């Protein structure tokens, strides 16, 4: 069959459809990135104009002890949040992927913390963690002694208290992602495996987990990027960055420098730094996202 039109007629139509999106995304995504990079080489306190100061912000950043402490905190968040949000939601998804009565209700319940605004979640948990709050109450009952741990004000426990909340909020979100993947696995595979003697929990090691590998990678990357951007939970539950800065994250520090002390040049340098790390992680996402498509 010979090709009908060798010369395609040019039309403005597709570009007109795309115009709002391109203009908007250019203005709110691409342009600000360039501006942020520019600002990171300047001194800018929001009044007057930015004054160029070369690499000074980056040099100061390198020497900034608080920044390194904050970066360390963020890595602690990463180390605990990511494995939890990769493994727990998968286990939960396997649990709710059964044809049980009212299972849809449970799926919805587990997803619910995702929907609740971060502020509300932070406040609810703030009270759970209070010195005479519920958590201590239950611990007292279990251990037969009065427990009054100040979870959010003790530098040793504060960051872990917040990590628990981040995990609580995230499990449902990733459970749903895994669920979509689980439901694409044909039932015949499990039947065949059962014949070979792989049943019960064993079948999950033999079949489910290998097949879910692309999803596991996807969730690892998304949750890593998410963990690098933690801000609201810290702001609500430990205003000021926690006892001895023990819960402050990179984004919190960025917000502080940019909007509280109005050192916008310096804040932009922090932003560029954060962007580079996330950019590198994102590149990996797109390398791995294609295997996901071939499964479904």
């Amino acid at each position: 069959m010979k090709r009908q039109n060798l010369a395609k007629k040019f039309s403005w139509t597709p570009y007109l459809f795309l115009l709002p999106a391109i203009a908007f995304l250019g203005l709110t995504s691409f342009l600000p990135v360039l501006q942020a990079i520019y600002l990171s080489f300047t001194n800018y306190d929001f009044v007057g104009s930015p004054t160029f100061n070369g690499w000074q912000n980056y040099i100061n950043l390198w020497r900034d002890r608080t920044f390194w402490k904050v970066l360390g905190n963020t890595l602690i968040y990463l180390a605990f949040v990511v494995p939890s949000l990769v493994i727990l939601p998968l286990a939960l998804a396997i649990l709710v992927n059964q044809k049980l009565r009212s299972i849809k209700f449970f799926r919805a319940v587990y997803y619910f913390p995702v929907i609740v605004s971060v502020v509300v979640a932070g406040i609810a948990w703030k009270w759970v963690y209070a010195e005479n709050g519920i958590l201590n109450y239950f611990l007292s009952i279990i251990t037969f002694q009065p427990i009054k741990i100040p979870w959010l004000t003790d530098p040793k426990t504060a960051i872990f208290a917040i990590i628990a909340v981040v995990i609580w909020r995230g499990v449902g979100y990733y459970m749903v992602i895994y669920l979509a993947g689980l439901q694409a696995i044909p039932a015949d595979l499990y039947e065949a495996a059962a014949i070979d003697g792989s049943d019960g929990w064993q079948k999950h090691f033999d079949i489910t987990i290998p097949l879910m590998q692309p999803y596991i990678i996807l969730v690892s990357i998304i949750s890593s990027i998410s963990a690098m951007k933690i801000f609201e939970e810290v702001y609500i539950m430990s205003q000021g960055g926690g006892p001895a800065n023990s819960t402050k994250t990179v984004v919190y520090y960025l917000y502080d420098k940019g909007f509280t002390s109005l050192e916008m040049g310096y804040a932009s340098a922090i932003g560029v730094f954060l962007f580079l790390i996330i950019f590198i992680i994102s590149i990996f996402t797109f390398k791995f996202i294609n295997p996901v498509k071939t499964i479904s």
Partner: protein
Amino acid sequence: MKKKNLQAFSSNILNNIPQFILLIAIATLTVFPLLWLISTAFKSPSENIFQSVPQLLPAQPTFDNFIKVWKNARFDLYLWNSFFVSSITVILNLLFCSLAAFPLARLDFKGRDQIFWAIVGTTMIPFQITMIPLYILAVQLNLKNTYAGLIFPYVISAFGIFLLRQAFQSVPKEMEEAARMDGCSSLGIWWHVMMPAARPALTTLAVFTFVAMWGDFLWPLAIVDKAELYTLPRGIASLASAFSEDWRLIAAGSTISILPVFIVFVFLQRYIIPTDASIGVKG
């Protein structure tokens, strides 16, 4: 007939008791902090929230806290602001993302793939880096402390374009061809063929966008500092940081904030959570 179903129902549960115990235990863990919050909202001033033996059910339940937070703390205004901003953002998103997704999904033109990948590329840009220049831009455009300022970074989302492009791609070609033969323009095809066919995806996008806007905190924190324009998260946060925090009021405000998303979720959760029917044919 009913008796048979009841038997099937109860035997299904009985056979799976350990599973249900586990499911219920996890559900309790999940929901418990929120139940505590809501219960606090109904407690009267005479009840000590932090008494040594915590009570989940208020001894003397009252609506007082809600009335106070509605009138004195102006949560009626915050609720309206959140609702207005979230709804407008949803509408704008559905409109502009679908307009952009249509040519990317169904038309053939120069630069199509490059434009698509550039759009997808914006998802790699974290908001935290664009936040400061966006703020400066917004202030220069006099958008500080305005509804437009609250909405403008979110009007079009790359995620929305991605989602709708996928939905449009699965619309059968015959429908589009039939419409073209009837003399339909591209715009007409977009409106009469694509949009109706993509209704589930549009609903999914609407729900995600609404929920995200409803709970958004960082941008509103930066762009608005006048209480008249606070959205609910901001309003709750300001209550919580006030010198004399009244826990009951904060709880009441938070409960008001949860209610609308809860309702949206209850009715539309099937657009977010995969059901067994949403995947196509087996194998």
